[in-house]
C-alpha cells in the first residue's frame, strides 16, 4: 500500500519540524511589529522586518472552514478518503491548513474550538493536526 507523502524539512523550516517532533507548535514572530506569520518565510509579511523569531504558539484555534476530500489525487490517500482538510484560525492570528482528528467528519462544525496535537508521519517527521478542544 502506498504511503502518504512526508515533508522533507529544509534549513528554514527546520525549527517548525523540530518543534513538531517535540510536541510544540512553533511559528515565526516579528518583534518589530508584534505579529505572527505562517507559512515559514524569511521576512515579516506585515512590516518587512528581516528578523523573525521562532516562538511556541498556543496551539489553540477555531475551525474557519473545511472540506471532505473524496478525490484521490495521490495513491497514499487511496485508503484515507473521505478525509477532511481544514483551515484553522489560531489565536495568534494566522490561518493554518491541517487535518482535524479525533472526531467524525459529520461532526465537524465551523467555529468549533480546536487544540493542536501531533501525529507521526514517519520515524523523523511529525505533523501538527487539530482535535476538538476540551
Amino acid at each position, binding site marked *: 500500500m502506498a504511503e502518504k507523502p512526508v*515533508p522533507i524539512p529544509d534549513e528554514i523550516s527546520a525549527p517548525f519540524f523540530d518543534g513538531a517532533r517535540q510536541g510544540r507548535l512553533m511559528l515565526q514572530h516579528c518583534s518589530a511589529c508584534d505579529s505572527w506569520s505562517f507559512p515559514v518565510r524569511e521576512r515579516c509579511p506585515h512590516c518587512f522586518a528581516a528578523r523573525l523569531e521562532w516562538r511556541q504558539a498556543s496551539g489553540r484555534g477555531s475551525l474557519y472552514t473545511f472540506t471532505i*476530500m473524496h478525490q484521490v489525487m495521490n495513491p497514499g490517500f487511496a485508503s484515507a478518503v473521505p478525509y477532511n482538510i481544514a483551515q484553522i484560525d489560531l489565536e495568534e492570528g494566522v*490561518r493554518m491548513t491541517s487535518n482535524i482528528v479525533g472526531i467524525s467528519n459529520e461532526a465537524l462544525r465551523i467555529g468549533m474550538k480546536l487544540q493542536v496535537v501531533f501525529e507521526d508521519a514517519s520515524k523523523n517527521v511529525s505533523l501538527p493536526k487539530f482535535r476538538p478542544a476540551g
Partner: protein
Amino acid sequence: MPNQPKGAIVGLGVTPMGKIYGRRAVDFAAEAIALALDDAGLSKSDVDGLLINANLPGDMDVRSQMVLGFENLTLVNVMSAYGSTAGSMMQYACMAIREGLANVVVLVYADAPLSPTRGAGQSYAGPHRFPLTGIVGLRAAYGNFGANPEYAMAARRHMHLYGTTTEHFGIIAVGQRKWAQLSPWAQMRKPMALEDHHASRFIAEPLRLLDCCLVSNGAVAVVVTSAERARDLKQPPVNVLGYAQCAPGDNLRADRHPAVETGAKRSGEIAFRMAGITRDDIGTCQLYDCYTYTVLVTLEDYGFCAKGEGGPFVADGKLGPGGALPTNTGGGQLSGYYMWGFTPLSEAVVQARGQGGARQVPRNDYVLVSANGGILNYHSTIILSRHASG
C-alpha cells in the same frame, strides 16, 4: 454616455477544445493566432506586440515568440496572474497601444495538460505539482491537493455564513449547460438536470463533479488595436471601455476573507468608473467559473446583489437562456471549455459582436468580463462594448 474606448478587440481565434492529444501548447497557439488574424483581416506582419499567458506547465514561455515566427516585435512578454491574466493582458495591451509602443497586439493562452494517461484532476493536482521539501511539503502531507479542496473550503465558508446551498450551485451548473447546448464550441452538450448535478460524485465536499470546471487542451487568441484603427477592419469592433485588477492578498491571515470577499469588488468599481457606465447597463456577464461557487460570489462582489444573497439571486434561473441576466453564454468553463480567463473573454467578444447565433443575447451593448486566479488571490475585470462614444 460611456467614456472613450481604451482600445478595441478586432480578432478572435478559438481552436478545437478538449481531449485533443499529441499536440504541444505552442501548436495550439499558432492555430489560434492564425484564426484570430484571419478573423481580423490582418496579416502576421501587422503584429508588433505579443503577450503570452503563462500556462500551468510553463511551456508557453517568452521563447514562444520565436517558435511562432514573429519578427521585430516592439512589445513582448509572458504574463502571469493565473486565471486572471487575460484581464491584465488586455489592460497592458491597451496601455501599450495608447503609449505608441505597439499597434497590433496579440494576446494568447494555450495549454495542453491532458494526455491519454493524465486526466483533468491529475493534470492540475497530480504528485508532480506538489514538492515535499520545506514547509510547502505540508500540503501533500495533509492531502491538500490543488484548487478543488481550496475552493471547496471557500464555498463551505460562504454556505456557513449566508445559508447558500448546493441547490444554488446546481442551478448555476444547469443554466450553463443549457447555454453550452447552444454553442458549437462547447465540450459538454448533453442535457443536464438539477438531479444530475445532485447525483454527481463529490470531488471535495461541498463541491460535486458538476460544480467543477473542465480541463481543456486548446488555445484562444485575441487581436487588440486602437479603437480608431478598428473601425476599418473586417469585424465589428469590440471596444474596451474599462479594465482593472485587484489582488486581495493571501488567505492565510485570520483577519482576511478573500474566499468570500473577492477582488471583484474593487476591480469592478474601478472598471465601471473608467467605462463611465453602471451595472444596470450590463446586458450579459461572462464570469470566471472554475467552480459554480465562483460565479455566485463574483456576482455578489460586483454588486448585482448584496453580499450573501448570491444564492437566492441565481435561484430563479436568471443566468440561463431566457433569464434576466444571461451569464456564461458559451457554457463557461463548466460546460464550454477551460482556457482560464480567455473562456469568458472569448465569449464576450462573440456576444458583443452579435455573432452568438442561437445563444446570442438580446442586450449586448455592454458586456462584463471577469477573471480570477489562484485561490481567489487575483482578479481582473474588463468592460466591453460595441458602442464607441465621441
